[in-house]
């Protein structure tokens, strides 16, 4: 079974809920798919080892061979190569998607393909849980390939149940982490912001046609917003699980002592 834990808003407790579920499963694989802010390993104090690089292909122009014809820039779909007549084309790496159509277009073989690192995939253990995460290098804008590579490696190696912990938001990196799921756990909190963002993530989960349930964290801090969450759960036919608010948990978390949450 693959369970993806997501939530829209950041800081509602996605990782804490995901780890609490994983710890109850016994032997499980935990995939931290928040590659821009991976946190599960830190919470569990797990030592992580790099098991692979994520690279992107980029062109390198051999300036001696280049005849300044500009065909590479014409072939480039994303304006990563810009040709000024009579000059060697300029390369804007942040636009490059690594398709290498420029290399195919070059009539004199002046473009070679180089692999550039954009992130690292890591593995670690704690108790019976195997953790995989991915870390984007600073300044890397397009992190989707890191999420894809991480999921590919982790799902290939996984034995038993798998928990995938997503980034905050409702963007394509979250979509990538939901797509392989059999079920989705949506983590929210009874605050105006939690409820606002819950409606968005529910829309996404419905669009992806995944069965889901809602985990309402910090239950007990606002009756008004608890009522709203209950209504949203009922409207969509999702089971609602409640996690009582605990100031002790917040303190323990801050001090680096992670204890599983109580899920009712």
């Amino acid at each position, binding site marked *: 079974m693959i369970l993806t834990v997501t939530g829209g808003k950041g800081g509602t407790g996605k990782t804490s809920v995901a780890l609490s579920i994983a710890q109850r499963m016994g032997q499980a694989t935990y995939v931290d798919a928040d590659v821009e802010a991976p946190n599960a390993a830190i919470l569990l104090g797990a030592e992580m080892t790099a098991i692979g690089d994520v690279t992107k292909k980029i062109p390198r122009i051999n300036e001696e061979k280049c005849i300044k014809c500009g065909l590479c820039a014409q072939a480039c779909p994303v304006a990563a190569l810009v040709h000024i007549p009579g000059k060697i084309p300029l390369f804007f790496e942040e636009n490059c998607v690594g398709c290498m159509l420029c290399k195919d277009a070059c009539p004199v073989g002046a473009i070679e393909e180089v692999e550039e690192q954009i992130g690292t995939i890591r593995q670690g253990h704690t108790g019976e849980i195997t953790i995989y995460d991915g870390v984007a290098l600073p300044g890397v804008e*397009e*992190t989707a390939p890191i999420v894809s590579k991480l999921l590919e490696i982790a799902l290939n190696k996984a034995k038993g149940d798998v928990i995938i912990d997503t980034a905050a938001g409702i963007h394509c990196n979250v979509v990538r982490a939901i797509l392989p799921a059999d079920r989705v756990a949506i983590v929210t909190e009874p605050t105006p912001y939690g409820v606002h963002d819950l409606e968005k993530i529910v829309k996404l989960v419905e669009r992806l046609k995944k069965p889901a349930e809602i985990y309402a964290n910090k239950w007990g801090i606002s009756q008004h917003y608890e009522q709203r969450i209950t209504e949203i759960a009922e409207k969509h036919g999702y089971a609602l699980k409640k996690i009582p608010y605990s100031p002790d948990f917040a303190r323990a978390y801050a001090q680096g002592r992670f204890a599983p949450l109580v899920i009712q």
Partner: protein
Amino acid sequence: MIITVVSGKGGAGKTSITAAVAHAMPKDRIVLIDADVDTPNLALALGLERPVTKEDWRGLVVAEYVGGNTDPKICPFGAIGTDGNVNELLCEGCGVCVKKFPKSYRLKNVKGAEILEYRWDNVPLMTAELEPGRSGSGKIVAELRDLADRRGKEEKRDIQLIDAAAGRGCPVIASIRGADLAILVVDNTPTGISDAEAVVSVLKHFNVPFLFLINRYDLAEERVEDIVNTFTERGGTYIGRIPYDPDILRTYPVPVERILKHINAEEILKRI
């Protein structure tokens, strides 16, 4: 003058702090941007319920399969299925398939978001609501910044205050690029600190100086000195620490005075 509020970790308090900082600024000079287009909450934090304008943004481009030759492997984002069809939620609109198979694929514009403009008193607040699952949040942020530039020129407002998304990828970089100053919110948790350090690397990459403050400092007070030293060493200027107050979470609009009294707003105002 562009000031961007960042944290790396979600839920660190960016939006509440942005709302508080906005209160401390000269209101006739600012334009606000909520660049967390996945889950925009700044309007809510300021107690604004209804936008003044709401428009579809159809600047997002995705590929469409019209039949014929194909090869799923050519897509850098794995968006092409074995039947040649494009999964729109994975497509980044790069157009590689169109270049490779011009007869089989074409690009089309789709609705990527709704662009909203609120008014907080007279202050323009530009934001967008991403269509769930769409890519392109970086492009939307760029669009919001263009709109904010325009509003700024029209209304002679020379300061933009940007509330960035969580993370440190495309939409965050689109919020940081060209900024004159960042305000870094360090959530006083092991994960909050790690994520904040990662964002500092991105700020350095784009040469953006930063001020920093610590949120929920009293949850692990013994660590505060270390945090101040770490981020000071990395070039930041310390401007305050805010205690843990779960009441702020359930209150809306955000009780700004309760946040602001812990922030050295003078240090921010000095820079503008």
